C-alpha cells in the first residue's frame, strides 16, 4: 500500500513540478525526494517507487504525445540519438532517464528519513 501511495504521489508531484515554467527541469528530483521522506520505505523500495512513478509518468506522457503526433517527430529523434529509428526505444529511454533521477532522489530521501537499523 505504502509503495503504491509513494509511486502515485511521486508521479503526481513530478507532473505538477513540470507544469511551472519557473521551475528547472529537475524540479521532480526534489519532489521525489520529499515523497520518500514523507512516505518512508526501505531504501530499495523507495528507489523502486520513485523510479516506477516517474518512469510511468514520462513514458506515459511520451507515449501519449507520440500517439497524437503519429510519430512524426519521434521517428526523427530516434535517428538523431543512436536508437536506429525505433520510437518505442525512445519512449523507454525517456522513461528510464526520468525514472533513474527520481529513483536516486527517492533513495536519498529514504536515507535522510531513516534512523538506522532499529526502525
Amino acid at each position, binding site marked *: 500500500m505504502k509503495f503504491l501511495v509513494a509511486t502515485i504521489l511521486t508521479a503526481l508531484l513530478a507532473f505538477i513540478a513540470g507544469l511551472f515554467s519557473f521551475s528547472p527541469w529537475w524540479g521532480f528530483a526534489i519532489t521525489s525526494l520529499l515523497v520518500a521522506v514523507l512516505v518512508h520505505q526501505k531504501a530499495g523500495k523507495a528507489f523502486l517507487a520513485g523510479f516506477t512513478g516517474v518512469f510511468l509518468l514520462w513514458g506515459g506522457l511520451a507515449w501519449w504525445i507520440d500517439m497524437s503526433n503519429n510519430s512524426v517527430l519521434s521517428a526523427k529523434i530516434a535517428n538523431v540519438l543512436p536508437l536506429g529509428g525505433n520510437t518505442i526505444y525512445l519512449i523507454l529511454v525517456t522513461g528510464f*532517464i526520468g525514472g533513474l533521477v527520481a529513483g536516486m532522489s527517492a533513495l536519498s530521501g529514504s536515507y535522510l528519513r531513516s534512523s538506522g537499523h532499529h526502525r
Partner: protein
Amino acid sequence: MRVVPFIISAVFSSALIVGLNKQWGSIPPMGKFLHPQYGFWQNAEPSSQSFDADLSIEDLKGNANVYLDERLVPHVFAENDEDLYFIQGYLHAKFRLFQMDLQTKAAEGRASEIAGEKAINYDKEQRRLGMRFAAENAMKEIEKEAAYKKLFDAYTNGVNTYINSLTESSVPLEYKLLNFQPEKWTNLRTALLLKMMAKMLSSGTEKDLDYTNAKAIFLPDQLKKLYPQVPDSLLPIIPKGTAFEKPGIIPVPPANADSLYINNTESVVANEISKPDINNGSNNWVVAGSKTQSGVPILSNDPHLELSLPSIWYEIQLQTPSSNTYGVSLPGSPFIIIGFNDSIAWGVTNSQRDVKDYYDIKFKDDKTKEEYWFNGEWQKSSLRVETIKVKGGDDVLDTVAYTVFGPVMFDKSHPDTIKGNRNLAVRWTAHDPSNEAITFYKLNRASNYDEYVEAIKSFECPGQNFVFASKSGDIAIWQQGNFPARWDRQGLFVMPGADSSFMWQGFIPQEENPHIKNPARGFLESANQRPADSTYPYFIPGSYISARAITIENYLKDMNAITPDDMMKLQNNYFNTLAEDVRPILLKYIREGDLSSTEKKYLDIFRNWDLMASPDSKGQTIYQCWFDSLEVGIWKDDLTRSNPMAPWPEEQTTMEWLKRDSAFSFIDDITTPEVETIYDIVTAALKKASVNLAKNEMEGKLEWSKFKDPTIYHLLKTALPAFARTGLHVGGNGNIINAVTHSHGPSWRMIVQMSTPTEAYGVYPGGQSGNPGSKFYDDYIDNWVNGKYFKLWYMREGDRLDKNIKWTMKFKKA
C-alpha cells in the same frame, strides 16, 4: 538519518542531474531534452493541433485577423500597413524562428556561436566580405524615411512579440538540440537577411580570381574564345534585333591598361570558402493574351536555389483596405517577394551580372594594415576589429582593413593559402547604401506597368530580371540593378589598386537597363542567360547560363492557346537541349570498334535516349558522365598549366567549339607524346565514364534520379540527416527547365493567369511549418516531386466565413 548512505546517494543523484544538464559534444543536455514537459516531446505537434488563437497586443493600432487554410497558409486581414507587417513578423517567427535566427547569424559571420570552431573560417570570410558593413549601409537608407522605417519597426516588433511569448518548453526544437536561445530581432537583422540574398545571387557571378589564373597561361585572344562573352547559341532576354539607345556613359580604359592589367600574367592564390552555388538561377516567362486560350496573359516563375527544410519561402496573403497581395515571402523580411495582386503579377530570376571586383592593395606594413598606397601616397585604412565568439572556445579576433575600394577580403592573415604580397580589396555593389526591400512594398501595391517600373527602379543589388503581367494585358521584363559601366574586360581579372585609374567610372543609367514591353511575338522569358546580344552598348560580364532559355524559347514560340496547365507542364519539362546538340557530335566521333560489350551497351542506350532527363532515364546518366569525362579529357591538361587551375569553360562553349571546329588545338592531351584527335578523346571519355557507370549500375543507380539522389536537407545539412528528405523521384538538372540537381532546384513554382478572378497555382518543396515535429514540415514535397500544384486561394473581404478557413488567429489591440 543514515549519514553515509545519504551522502553517497545524494552526491550520486546530484552528479546524475548535473551530467544530464550538460551538453556533451554534440549531445544536447539529455535530462531536459527528454523531459516530456520541457524537451523535444513538446515540439511533437498533435496531428489535430488547432491554430486558433486570441491574442491581445499593445503594439497594434487596430484589430486584425489571420485566417489559416488547410495548408496552413495565412491570409492576413489588417486595418493598416503597420499592423500588417507586425503580424507578418509574428507569423514568420511563429513558424520559422530558427531559420531566421540561423540565417542572419550566418550572414553576419556568427556561425561559430552555434557550430563551434569549425565555422571560424566561414565567419571570417563573411566579415571580410563586409556583410555587416553592407547591412549597416542599407540600414542608413532604410531609416532615412520615417514612413518606411516604421514598416520595418513594426515587422521587428512582431517578431519580438512572438519571441517574448516563448517558454522553455515552447522554443523551437533546434534550440533544444543545439542548446542555445533565440536572439531578439532588429531591423539590422532584416537588412542582413537581404544581404544574404545579395551574396547568394551577386557574389558568385564573377570569376575574377579564376580568370586571373587563366590570364597567367592563355593569350588574350585565347581567353576570348575559352570564355566568350556572347555564346553563338545565345537567345537573349531582349529578343535579337531589338534596338538599343546610344550609351549615356562611355567608360575609357586607362592608358596603361594593357601593360599593367591585360598582359599581366601573375596568378593569384585565394579561395572563397563559401562561394555561392553556380546553379543559383531561375526561370521566368510570360505569355501575352494573343497566345493564351483565355486571351489574358499568364506569368510563370520558378527561382532555383539551394533546397532546404524549412524552405527559404513562406507563403502568405497580406490584405489591408488598400492592398491585397498573395505570394511568397522570405522569413526575416516584411513584404511579398514573388506574387500577385488583383491587377498585376511579377516574378524574378537572377541577372547573373558581375558586380564584384578585386583590387590589389599594397600595405605599408602587412601586419598592422594601417596604411595603403593610393594615388601616390600612404592612405590611412579604416580598421575594423572583428570579434568572433566561438561556442566552447576562446574568442577569435580578426582585423579587416577598409580601403577606398572596400574591405580587404584576402590578405596574409586569411586564408592561409594566400602567398606572396597580394592583398585583395573587394568592390561590390551590395556594399552601396540602398533599400531593396521597398521595391517589394511598392510592387505589392502596383496596379499597372508604370507603377511596376516605378517600384523596381531603385532596386540595386542583386540584379534581377523582373517579369511582369497585368490584367490590362501588358507583359514586360526589366533587368534591373545598379550595374557598373565597364570598359572592355574591366573587372574580369584582379585590377591594380595603386590609384584611382582602374576604379569604376560610373554606372549604366537605370533607364538603359535591358527591358522590353509587349513584344510582337507575344512572349518573354529569362533563364539566367545574357540579357542582350552583342549590340547592347556595354561590356557586361557575368555567369550566364544559356541552355534553359533556349529550351523555354523553343517551346514557347510554337505554343498557342496556352493554358495554366500547359505552363505547369513546361515548368516540369525535362528536355535536355544541350544533349540534343552534343549527341550527334559524340556519335560521330566514337570509335565503336574499340568498345567493350559493356561500353557498347551504354552507347546503345545513349543512342536511343529520348533526350529527357526524366527520373528513370538511364540515357541522361550516361550522357552526363560521358560529357563530364569529355570535358576533363579536352580541358584539364590545359587548365592545370596554371596553379591554381584556370576555370572550366562553360559546357555551352565546349559544345559550340566541337560543333564549329573539331580539330581545335586544346583537343590534344599535352601530357602525352602522341597527338590526340577528337576520335581518341571522345572514345577515351566513354571508356572512362563506363567504369563509373558500371559501378553505379551494380549498385542499382543507373537511373538518373537514383544516380543524383535528389535530397532536401534540413538547414543544418548533413549534421541532421534524419531531418532531410532523400531519394526523391525527380529528374532534371541545372541546365534543364526543371532544374533539380542533388540538393538544388526550383524552390517555388508559381503560375498566374490574369483572368477575372485571377487563377493562380503554386507549390514549393517543403511546408509552412519549420517544426520538424509538425505534419506541415514537409507536406508539399510529394506534390512538388510529382509536378502537381495547389490552387492559390486569393481570399477577399467577403470570404471571411468561407469553408476554406480552417483556423482563425484574432489579434486585438490591448
